[in-house]
C-alpha cells in the first residue's frame, strides 16, 4: 500500500501539493473574512485543484512541447516560465513608471499650492529708500555717520538696474 502511493513520487510533487493546499486554504480564509466573493472562491479552488491534479498526470507537458515544437516537456515548461517572467517584469516596470508619474503629479500639485514669492532684502531696502523723500537721510557716510545711511544706499548703488522700475 505504502509503495503504491509513494513509489515514484518525486519530492517536488509533494512540495507542490503542500504549496497548492496552502494557497487554497488562504483563498478559503479570505472568503470567510469576506475579502473574496463566492465566484472568486470557485475560481481559485478550480485553479489550485487543477494544479494538484495536473501534477500527478504523467506526460502532460509533452502536449505543450509538441505544440511548441520542442522535444521534452521540461524544456517547454522552462520556455513558458521565462517568457511569463519577462512579461511580468515588463508589467511591473510599466506599473512602477505610472506610479512614479502619479507621485510626481501629487508632489507638483502640493508644491504649486504653496509657492513662496519673496522679495530680496536688498530690493526691499532699495524700494523703501526710493519711496522716502530725499533730504537729510541722504547724508554722506564717513566721519560722524552711523553707518545706517550707508547700508540704505548700498543696494541702490550696487544695483543700478533696480532704479529702472
Amino acid at each position, binding site marked *: 500500500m505504502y509503495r503504491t502511493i509513494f513509489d515514484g513520487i518525486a519530492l517536488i510533487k509533494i512540495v507542490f501539493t503542500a504549496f497548492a493546499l496552502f494557497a487554497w486554504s488562504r483563498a478559503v480564509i479570505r472568503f470567510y473574512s469576506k475579502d473574496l466573493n463566492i465566484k472568486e472562491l470557485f475560481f481559485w479552488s478550480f485553479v489550485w485543484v487543477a494544479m494538484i491534479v495536473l501534477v500527478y498526470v504523467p506526460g502532460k507537458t509533452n502536449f505543450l512541447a509538441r505544440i511548441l515544437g520542442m522535444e521534452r516537456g521540461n524544456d517547454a515548461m522552462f520556455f513558458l516560465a521565462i517568457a511569463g517572467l519577462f512579461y511580468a517584469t515588463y508589467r511591473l516596470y510599466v506599473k512602477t513608471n505610472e506610479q512614479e508619474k502619479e507621485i510626481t503629479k501629487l508632489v507638483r500639485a502640493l*508644491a504649486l499650492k504653496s*509657492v513662496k514669492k519673496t522679495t530680496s532684502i536688498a530690493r526691499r531696502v532699495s524700494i523703501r529708500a526710493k519711496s522716502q523723500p530725499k533730504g537729510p537721510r541722504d547724508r554722506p557716510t564717513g566721519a560722524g555717520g552711523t553707518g545706517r545711511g550707508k547700508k540704505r544706499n548700498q543696494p541702490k548703488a550696487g544695483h543700478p538696474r533696480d532704479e529702472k522700475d
Partner: protein
Amino acid sequence: MNPVRDNLNITGICLDINFFMKARYLKTSSISNGMKVAIVIPAYNEEETLGLVLKSIPRHLPDVKKVEIVVISDGSYDKTAEIAKKAGVTLIEHDLNRGLGGALGTGFEYAKRNDFDALLTFDADGQHHAEDIWPVLRPIVYKKADVSIGSRLKNPLGMPWYRRVGIWGLNIFTYIFFWTWTSDSQSGLRAFSRKAIEGINLQSNRMEVSSEFFYEINKKNLKLIEVPIKSIYTDYSLAKGQKNINGLTIIARLIFRRFFSK
C-alpha cells in the same frame, strides 16, 4: 598722435554703436512688447553654488518686461531653500525628490499657470555663464524660434573628453529615437516660447528629460535653434552632473519612452 582726435574717434564709434542698438530696439520692440520671462532653476542640494548662481543672473533683460527667477528645490535637505528665500526669488519646494524631469515639469506648469511668455532653464551647479542667458533667450524674445538650446559642443573648450563622448552617444540615441538632430542633447540651458511651454508635456522624472524635450519638439513641430554657449567645468559640477554610466540608464528609459509609453 592727437589725443583729442583719438578721443573723438572713440566717441564716434560709441555713438555709432548706440545708434545701431537703438535702431534694433525700435525694430524689434514692435514685435515683442514686454515679455514675461521665467528663469527656472531646478536645484537638488545645491547650497554650495546656488547663491552665486542667483547673484549672477541678470534681473533685467532687453525687451523683457519682467524677469522672474523660479528656484525649484527638488526635495533638497540642505540650505538650498533658505538661500533661494534670502536671494528674493520665487521658491517652489517639492516635498520629495522627483528628479530633474519632475522639477522641470513643475517649472513648466508654473509658467503655464502664470502666463509667462518665455521660459529659460538654467543649471544650479554653476556650469553656465550668466552672459549666455541673453544669447539663448534672444531668438525666443524676437520670435525667431520656439525652442533655443544652448549647445556646449559648438564651443567645447574645457569640456573633458569623456564627457564629450558621452554626450555624443546620447545625441545619436536622441536622433535614432526622436528624429531630431542636436549637437548637445543634454544641455541645461534652454529657452522656450509660449507655444513650446503650452505644447511640451514632460513625462520623464529623471535625467532622460533632456532628450525627451527633443521628442516633444519633433512631435509638436516646434522650431529649434542652437546657440553656442560656454560651460564651466569644475570638480563640483562634474561630480554633480551625469556620469557616462548613467547614459545607459537614460538610453533604456528613452527606449521605453519611445516605444512603450503613451
